């Protein structure tokens, strides 16, 4: 078995419906068993990268994404589905099945892909829900839960099949401080106990740096820095420093690039 869980080389991508380049040739190496954070401002291409890892979009020619030893670009649909059985993903939007109760949402992948008896599936689903603190909500429907609770159910569903590679798109968003600490600890423990690899998209610098082994900082479709949390903290790069400390002043722009503000307001002396 290779020591690499995910290897991305020269990944370029633009959505067919939008004539904008989202990713500009990024390279990412995720060692097996590691917890890797993809960080960066909104719209820097983190979610698109994770979606490309799961094969939700076709990989463009000249780019390469190898997941658990399998090059995504060469897989047919059946091959992609076989690979996805080894992946678990927590979506930015919880994407829970609104017509199923919480317990059935967590049991869904088990029901679809295993021949386990009903009683075993039920027990496994309850155990996963217990891990995220929502065993008592098993009979409720997703609409009866808060946004943070829905994310925790989605996390329980993502880990239901004990996947080898876990992808979390903003797992800490909408969580209260207690839940945030517990979920961060859970992600760490899952990696250790299941021997899985995790890729986390997050903006929460402090919590993330406590649990991850490696950080990739993305900006406008490029990886602008990478290293261990300690290396990132010690970085003299003004972009890295500004992002980690959340400073308002620095090279990272807050405004989306666009036309001149004064001209948009039709001020008389605008050029």
């Amino acid at each position, binding site marked *: 078995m290779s020591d690499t869980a995910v290897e991305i080389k020269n990944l370029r991508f633009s959505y067919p419906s939008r004539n904008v380049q989202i990713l500009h040739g990024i390279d990412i190496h995720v060692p097996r068993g590691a917890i890797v954070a993809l960080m960066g401002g909104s719209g820097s291409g983190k979610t698109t990268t994770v979606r490309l890892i*799961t094969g*939700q979009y076709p990989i463009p020619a000249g780019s390469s994404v190898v997941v658990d030893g399998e090059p995504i670009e060469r897989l047919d649909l059946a091959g992609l*589905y*076989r690979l*996805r*059985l080894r*992946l678990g*993903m927590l*979506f930015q*939007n919880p*994407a*829970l*099945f*609104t*017509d199923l109760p919480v317990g059935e949402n967590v049991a*869904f*992948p088990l029901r*679809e*892909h295993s021949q386990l008896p009903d009683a075993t599936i039920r027990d496994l689903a309850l155990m996963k829900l217990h891990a995220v603190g929502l065993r008592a909500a098993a009979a409720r429907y997703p609409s009866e839960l808060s946004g943070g609770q829905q994310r925790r159910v989605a996390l329980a569903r993502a880990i239901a*099949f004990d996947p080898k590679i876990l992808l979390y798109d903003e797992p800490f968003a909408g969580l209260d401080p207690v839940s945030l600490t517990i979920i961060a600890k859970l992600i760490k423990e899952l990696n250790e106990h299941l021997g899985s690899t995790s890729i986390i998209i997050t903006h929460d610098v402090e919590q993330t740096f406590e649990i991850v082994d490696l950080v990739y900082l993305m900006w406008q479709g490029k990886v602008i820095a990478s290293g261990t949390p300690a290396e990132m903290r010690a970085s003299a790069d003004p972009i890295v420093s500004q992002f980690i400390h959340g400073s308002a002043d620095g090279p990272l722009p807050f405004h989306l690039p666009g*036309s001149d503000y004064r001209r*948009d307001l039709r001020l008389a002396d605008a050029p």
Partner: protein
Amino acid sequence: MNEGRDSSLGRSRRRKGVIPAIRRLGWPLVEKTYFLGTFARFCWMIAARVPGCLKRPRLVWVQVYHLGTLSLPIIIVAGLFIGLVIGLQFHTILDRYGQTQVVGAAVAIALFRELGPVFAGLLFIGCSCTAVTASIGLKRSSEQFAAMEVMAVDPLEREIAPRFVAGALCLPLLTVILLAVAITGTYAIVVLQIGMDEGFFWGNMQRFTKFFGDFTEGLLKSVVFGVMSSAIALYHGYSARPTAEGVARATTNTVVYASLTLLGLDFVITSLLAS
């Protein structure tokens, strides 16, 4: 007053000139051709997944239950009123010619061949197909299908194909229920209210109505309508823009396209069978 001043806020201005005018004329044609192409491809994708979904009949029965129960109350109420009105009208008209004894047969033939499948189809579109479009559109916009795909589950086989098979099964069943209730309505108004002889009512209905011909023609129509309206509802839900406006528009499109296609197909099937 502010027309054309705020293009920086995203409001588009209508371009003038010959080329934009030609584009505006040609665009609907391109759009309709694209719709037909993608719809045909979508139907093929569903058809290819029907055998797979039939291996899990529970998924189909759940949808049959949902779609059927959604339309059943309105089918029963509408069937009763249709039967009452048609019975009354036929009795009034046939009374002019002294032929009221065939009112049962006339109503049955009209219902079996034409009114039953068309009314049941239109009500099914209004009740169940719109619900299907909205639920599929919302599932897609909330990334539930994307989540399924990442879990190595094909949403077309798990969610779309069972609804398609259920729609094709439900409409013939609902049509038969509507026919039974409508005939009961006619019986109530003509026999119980007006006082026509019960023997003439049922006897002439049996004598002049053919099972192979009248009833089977209506049943064939309802099967075709069920397949067509389900496919249109699923397509519009699956291709809806992932916004509230997109799902609302898709639901409206389902009613418009499915109803018009149903009426067009009704004429085509009637013509083919008549010839």
